[in-house]
């Protein structure tokens, strides 16, 4: 059963487990590839994670002159192939979400590869497997659809999907709190 990464942003408690777990993925070289942001840092404690959303038509791969960014058959947009990346940093400029990181010393771009060693076998990525607040979940399309029904708006769209640039493999849901919906866990 094909599963996807699904983000329920409002649940984030800012523990940064996902960052720590990311560093422990085989081959991530103990560096995390995801982000957690304070929404309004000087006022409250609400945080939200930001991951690579694995676009269906990824700008990073389209802008790569070396064909270093490959798209896996599961839809995951992989990190740059080490032998191909020429260090031009086009991908970091192209990404609408500012996700790819660049190591000047190694002349190499690295980004979330959705823990492809795990997800290609249906095992959840490191971040989703450790998230204590169900912000990051690993769900089938049916389960995501059920979630979508729970939070849908009158116009038939997800709130979050309106704020993305294009179709993505990772599905994002917007906080129920901000919609005035009380969530029952």
């Amino acid at each position, binding site marked *: 059963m094909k599963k996807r990464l699904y983000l329920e942003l409002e649940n984030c408690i800012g523990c940064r487990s996902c960052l720590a777990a990311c560093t422990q993925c085989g081959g991530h070289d103990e560096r995390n590839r995801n982000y957690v942001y304070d929404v309004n840092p000087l006022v409250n404690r609400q945080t939200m994670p930001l991951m690579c959303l694995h676009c269906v038509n990824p700008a990073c791969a389209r*802008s790569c002159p070396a064909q270093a960014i490959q798209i896996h058959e599961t839809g995951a947009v992989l990190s740059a192939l080490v032998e191909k990346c020429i260090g*031009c*940093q086009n991908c970091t400029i192209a990404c609408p*979400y500012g996700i790819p990181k660049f190591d000047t010393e190694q*002349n190499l771009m690295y980004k979330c590869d959705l823990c492809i060693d795990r997800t290609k076998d249906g095992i959840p990525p490191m971040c989703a497997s450790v998230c204590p607040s169900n912000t990051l979940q690993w769900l089938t399309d049916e389960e995501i659809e059920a979630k979508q029904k729970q939070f849908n708006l009158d116009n038939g769209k997800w709130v979050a999907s309106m704020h993305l640039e294009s179709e993505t493999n990772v599905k994002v849901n*917007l906080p129920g709190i901000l919609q005035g919906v009380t969530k029952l866990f």
Partner: protein
Amino acid sequence: MEAQVATKPKVKKEHSINHAFASHFAKSMFISVLGLAILTFIGTRMFTHVDLNLYGYMVGTIVFLGGFFYRFIAWGERPPTKVFIKKGLKLLFRKTTPQTTVEHLATYRFIWNRGVYRWTQHLLIGWGCVLACLVTFPLVFGWMYFTMPENGYYTIVAMGISLITIPADGFIAYLSYNALNISAIMVIAGVTMALYRRLKNMQARAEQKFMYDFMPLYLLLFVSITGLALTFINMFLHGWGHSVMSLIHQYSVIITLIYLPFGKLAHIPFRPMSVLARNYREHYGEQSMKPCKVCGEEFVSTEQSQDVLSVLATNEIEFKKEDFHLAELCLPCRRKYRIAQFSGFPTHEVKVKEANQNAKG
């Protein structure tokens, strides 16, 4: 006025050498084969010293050139690649080019930074192959050959010029006979290290595919071992089976050559692009940098930003918002802007540094 401007370059183009050829591919192929023929003509003193024993390699090299140009030209036609090749070549003569070239193509400094083990294996394989090519191709095309005008002394002839006369049992002669053995041992050591890493390293194990990652290594190993076997046969078996083994070796080299532009080994001819990319970034970085619309930090050269936008436009990707373009934001601001889109609160406008993004507690 407009018509004049339009016709002027057209007239010039009619006399262009490009019109003599059906395609880029045909032109590149013609020039390369012609160049090889001329060099061989000079090197072999008007084809009087062709080593026909190596003629299979000659045919293999020309087939390789066909594959190489096919792959390289197709690759160079991709919009982002085209930009880097075109602008990078114009910026080839910069003060920093020699240093960048040595670091990227000879000493592999960036691989050292990825790990000493990987650097060692890469150095062994890379320079082993370079050494082998430097010996093999001059011999194949007759750019270098040995004559023995006087007993016990070899004369090395390079490009038709008698370069040096050396005693046949001397040190230089010893190195010449064994250059391919040395390179074979280097490649075998490097490939063994690489294979060991591919068996042990978790990321490598997760991502590797047999055909993409292992086969090139096995090919190199096969070439090196059959090459060493030739020496072994000569020294210990009195040449028993030499003719068969030399054919096996020849086939293995030719197959590797023909495969080279299409698989993982294609990174060898494509790697010089990284020098062009570095020059491009350095040059346009000095010209003018683009400040972030929100925080004002200069994050990329104006030129590169423009180039990426146009490349994305050819792919029909455009990240335009109501009153600005996403490319105007620096990367941290782009991320915060996305959070702002989700939450409705303008996170990117709060002047606070992004906190704790390194998972260091």
